[in-house]
């Protein structure tokens, strides 16, 4: 999520690919598209990782389309019910939808970026409560094996957590568990 040069999360987030449309011919770089052509022709569409697109987009060599995880279809789904959208399915396992979104937001023009920021923030805030509730519920169960009769919606929500939310889930679960253990511990045997 952060911009630190050494942050592995940020490197992974920049590895997501977006579709770029080139505006000019670029000779000898056809291998970027899998190596069938020698040159990149203007108006050809190529999937490129985000870290490579900054310079292309800001120097006006290429345009990009807003990637599928942030399409209006997903936005509508988030508006309807945040908690039933599977963010992990949108960006692939282990990736962060929020970190990806943050980078795309940076590439967008001002108004579009503000809208996108609002979508990300609302989604995060509305899902946060459910993340923490479930984390504390699991901490209270004591051991993870005992989650037999949890209902399907909750399980589906957990599967749909993206990397950022997973991290929060783990933090909340750890602290709730250690506090619970402390409350149940005793010093009576000590002398």
């Amino acid at each position, binding site marked *: *999520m*952060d911009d630190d040069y050494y942050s592995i999360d940020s490197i992974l987030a920049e590895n997501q690919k977006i579709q770029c449309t080139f505006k000019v011919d670029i000779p000898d770089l056809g291998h970027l598209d899998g190596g069938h052509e020698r040159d990149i022709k203007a108006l050809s569409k190529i999937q490129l990782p985000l870290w490579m697109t900054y310079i292309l987009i800001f120097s006006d060599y290429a345009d990009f389309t807003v990637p599928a995880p942030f399409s209006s279809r997903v936005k509508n789904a988030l508006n309807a019910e945040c908690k039933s959208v599977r963010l992990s399915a949108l960006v692939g396992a282990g990736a962060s939808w929020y970190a990806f979104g943050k980078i795309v937001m940076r590439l967008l023009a001002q108004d579009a970026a*503000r809208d996108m*920021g609002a979508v*990300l923030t609302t989604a995060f*805030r509305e899902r946060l409560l459910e993340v923490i509730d479930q*984390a504390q519920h699991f901490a209270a169960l004591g051991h993870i094996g005992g989650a037999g009769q949890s209902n399907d919606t909750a399980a589906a929500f957990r599967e749909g957590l993206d990397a950022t939310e997973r991290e929060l889930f783990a*933090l909340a679960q750890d602290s709730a568990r250690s506090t619970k253990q*402390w409350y149940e511990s005793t*010093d009576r045997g000590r002398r």
Partner: protein
Amino acid sequence: MALPPSLRVSFSPQELELIACEELVEIIPLIAMEKTAFISGAYGPLRPPNKAKVPLWMAMNLKLKKKCHIVAPDWLSVEYLQDKLLQETNAEGFSALPLRFAEMSKVLLDVAAEDIPNSDKVRSLLKDIREVRQAKSRDGLKKIDHIELSLANLCAMEINEIRPFYTRAMDVLTHLARSPIADV
């Protein structure tokens, strides 16, 4: 960093208990002891039927050796806690309790339950208060944004429990809400 993530941002409950053990409590000693210097200060003298003020760790130690009775603090009584529970359920915010009440009451009920009048009732009242307060801090999560979250009168143990994920969530919100202009 070599520390596990959970220890980087907050204390462990055991560390908080250690800190709380520096708080003074009243005891009725069963042994005599001259005024003695410890690293944290000089305590004593202990002269049996007279009460003395010593830190909680010392009281705990003496109690476990059956060398004193602990006098329950004012706030660890059924009336006081019932009053607080009522405030807690009726009022919006958190009621004012001693900062380290969770740690101290846990230690006292653990080692000196027989010295606290109505200890079972006290225990269940503390549990109720804790649950009401937890529900309130959960409501606070709805109001979280990237600038601040103010939950007055939260006690040390409660802050410590929510600190790791509240700070992380606010950190994420800061990144998401930052205006793109500021980035360039």
